[in-house]
């Protein structure tokens, strides 16, 4: 066994009302990729926040040892000095500074009182090389793609000379190919002796690249698996605390009449009015059907559905609901025509964090609970409670604010809100992003149930297994155009990627 770099001993951390971590022990060895998996709320992030110093050492019980020496972090800087670098889920860099400036943000001082830019740029280049990124060190960050920005955040972490890299959902906003590249770089870092701690909901990545998997549940470490003994079924059942035979509860339901048809949709590019981000897209969806929309990030998938829903302006194109041409200029009209949209980033435009579960569920259907110009409290409670129970939102009661819920439960509330509008067509944009396995399964179940009731569902997904397993039919977009259509039964990851990238693989 390689030498132990990190030892966390008997860590217990309590928040008011809950024990987030209960006597957790964790070890990491030199030169390994250690994955920590578990449902949302299992305590992974809390554990990493303790390690990175976000939670000061006096706010929990337990000890941390690095290279056999006991350490106590009062803040993130001390943790960084001890050789721990954290790469956060959300990028926290300055988009309007250039690459080199971002790499050494907060540490420009080491390049002299009057910053010697040449030195800084040279140093930056050496770290960019480590992550095999071919960009100019003076390039402004905003001009780079999401995946390049992610690599730069890794380069920045490396520049603080760490022993341990913590990656929290590093591939959440990356496409399949970009993720692959990121992991190749992680494998190389591992060869160089870095220890990588990975937190990810994407289990296929975890299984493909980890040397060891630690399963957490309800604030406890359940088990640790060596690479030689990975067993997907066992690990998932340990995560959710019950046996799960099938990740995707897809069922065949009768597919009936066409309900919505989109013809020749074009949407202007948000940054460049002369370019189109969606170009001449047509498709239709039928009752009981789950239509998947595949494609790379930037292929125009979200823009397409946002334009259908009236959130952004389209350039041209028609929408037909049950054969009738309809005009949709804003979300209000879309809702009235029987369309619902669960948007891509629920934090940005999915829910109101400072409002209660009840108020969020009824937000898109205020008219239905209003009589004589007043909201009827009882009617509202009854309507909201129905979805609260049906979708099994985990919360003490409906007065809880959305801010305090986990991602999966927030998503259930957002879904409740849209189901309450009684839609004929439900559009889901990355419905399971950042959501734990158990809740994912529940959301798939809900989708199948809705399809059986005759709803038409359109699902955008970057997770290929999900897209392929849940869809009856997949439309693949590439560069804003329809690259092809695949019946669900014939779909494979290769076929989708082939169309999405526009090349044979």
């Amino acid at each position: 066994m390689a030498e132990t770099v990190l030892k966390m001993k008997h860590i217990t951390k309590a928040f008011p009302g809950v024990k987030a971590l209960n006597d957790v022990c964790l070890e990491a060895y030199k030169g390994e990729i250690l994955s920590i998996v578990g449902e949302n709320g299992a305590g992974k992030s809390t554990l990493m926040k303790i390690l990175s110093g976000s939670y000061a050492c006096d706010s929990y019980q337990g000890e941390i040892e690095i290279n056999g020496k006991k350490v106590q972090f009062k803040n993130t800087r001390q943790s960084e000095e001890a050789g721990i670098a954290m790469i956060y889920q959300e990028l926290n860099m300055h988009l309007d500074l250039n690459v080199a400036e971002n790499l050494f943000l907060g540490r420009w001082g080491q390049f002299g009182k009057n910053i010697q830019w040449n030195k800084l740029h040279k140093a930056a280049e050496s770290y960019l090389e480590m992550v095999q990124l071919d960009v100019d060190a003076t390039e402004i960050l905003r001009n780079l793609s999401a995946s390049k920005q992610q690599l730069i955040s890794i380069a920045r972490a490396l520049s603080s000379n760490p022993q341990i890299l913590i990656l929290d959902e590093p591939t959440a906003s990356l496409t399949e190919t970009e993720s692959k590249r990121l992991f190749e770089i992680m494998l190389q870092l591992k060869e160089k002796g870095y220890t990588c701690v990975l937190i990810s909901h994407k289990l296929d990545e975890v299984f493909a690249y980890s040397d060891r998997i630690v399963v957490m549940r309800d604030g406890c470490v359940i088990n640790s698996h060596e690479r030689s003994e990975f067993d997907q079924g066992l690990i998932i059942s340990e995560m959710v605390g019950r046996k799960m035979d099938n990740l995707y509860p897809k069922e065949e339901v009768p597919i009936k009449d066409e309900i919505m048809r989109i013809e020749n949709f074009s949407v202007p590019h948000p940054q460049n009015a002369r370019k189109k981000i969606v170009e001449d897209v047509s498709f239709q969806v039928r009752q009981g059907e789950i239509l998947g929309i595949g494609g790379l990030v930037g292929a125009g998938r979200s823009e397409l559905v946002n334009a259908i829903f009236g959130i952004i302006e389209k350039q041209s194109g028609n929408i037909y609901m049950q054969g009738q041409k309809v005009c949709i200029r804003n979300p209000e009209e879309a809702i009235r025509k029987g369309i619902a949209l669960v948007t891509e980033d629920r934090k940005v435009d999915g829910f109101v964090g400072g409002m209660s579960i009840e108020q969020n569920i009824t937000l898109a259907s205020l008219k239905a609970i209003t009589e004589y110009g007043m909201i009827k409290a009882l009617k509202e409670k009854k309507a909201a409670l129905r979805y609260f129970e049906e979708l099994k939102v985990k919360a003490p009661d409906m007065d809880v604010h959305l801010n305090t819920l986990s991602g999966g439960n927030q998503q259930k509330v957002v879904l409740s809100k849209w189901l309450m509008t009684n839609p004929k067509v439900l559009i889901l944009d990355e419905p399971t992003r950042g959501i734990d396995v158990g809740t994912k399964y529940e959301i798939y179940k809900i989708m199948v149930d809705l399809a059986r009731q005759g709803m038409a569902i359109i699902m955008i997904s970057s997770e290929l297994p999900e897209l392929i397993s849940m869809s009856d039919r997949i439309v693949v977009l590439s560069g804003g155009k329809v690259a092809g259509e695949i019946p669900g039964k014939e779909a494979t990851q290769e076929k989708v990627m082939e169309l999405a990238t526009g090349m044979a693989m």
Partner: protein
Amino acid sequence: MKKKLNVNSLIKVGPLALLCIVTGIINPVFFSSSNLIDLARSISFLLIVSVGVTYVLLGASLDMSIGSVMGLGGAICGLCLVNDWPVWLSIIMGLLAAAVVGIVNAVLIVNCQIPALIATLGTMYVARGIVNVLTKGEPYYPLPDGFKAIGQGTLWSIPYSVFIALFIVIIGHFVIKKTPYGRSLMAVGGNREASRVSGINVKKILFSSHVLVSLLAGFVGIIMAARLSSAQPNAGEGWEMTAVAAVIIGGTSMYGGYGSVIGTILGCALMETISNAMVLLHVSVYWQKITIGVIMVAAVGMDTFRLKKIAAR
């Protein structure tokens, strides 16, 4: 949940009660009926406009022009009155002038998407400028007795304005708590994008809140002119800060989506009691501005701290 609410309101009532008691002990005049009536009147003036400010802040917007709008409402009304227009028509003209500023604010903020602070600072100057151009710096007077009664008349020796303020508070509270409009306003303030996606007409909501605050400000300006028997060109100067501070002390968030009209009552009571107490305790008026500034920053600081605590969970 219920328990927490009680503690919160206690925290707000506590300092107010303490202030009253201390002031009353040092200077018993504080508890004299004439002082209490004066205090109630000044609270009611501030309260009427602060209900509007509460709406604007709940929608995560801001209005710095209300002080000038008060001046404008009073001046236009006074101008009509000295030209022998009927009282009712003069009042309507004053309100109309105020509404126009509100509409301009709304167009700038909602349609042109100019930051609310800058847009309303601009209209604050323009509106005050118009008042100065019209009045040439001289107050409009004398005003007819029928008009003065609005500001000076009493019922059971309580000024009319107190009843008017109570009426506006009740309506304001009811609309926030019970109507789709109020709910939508809270949602827009909490998350504008999510509200838009949920089918709420965000522009309409914000537009109306800006017009409302201007109308209420113009209305207070008119009552103030009636109270003083003259429309003063500098009426309402500095009120924007007092009102915003009162609303924030009352627990409404600078960042929108959180707060209540009931809290605003407490905030207004506290602000006016402080300035009343300072007079009675013979503190120089020059200290009043310092006090308001400090209170305002402290209140916003507490609000920010509250949000940070939520985010840290």
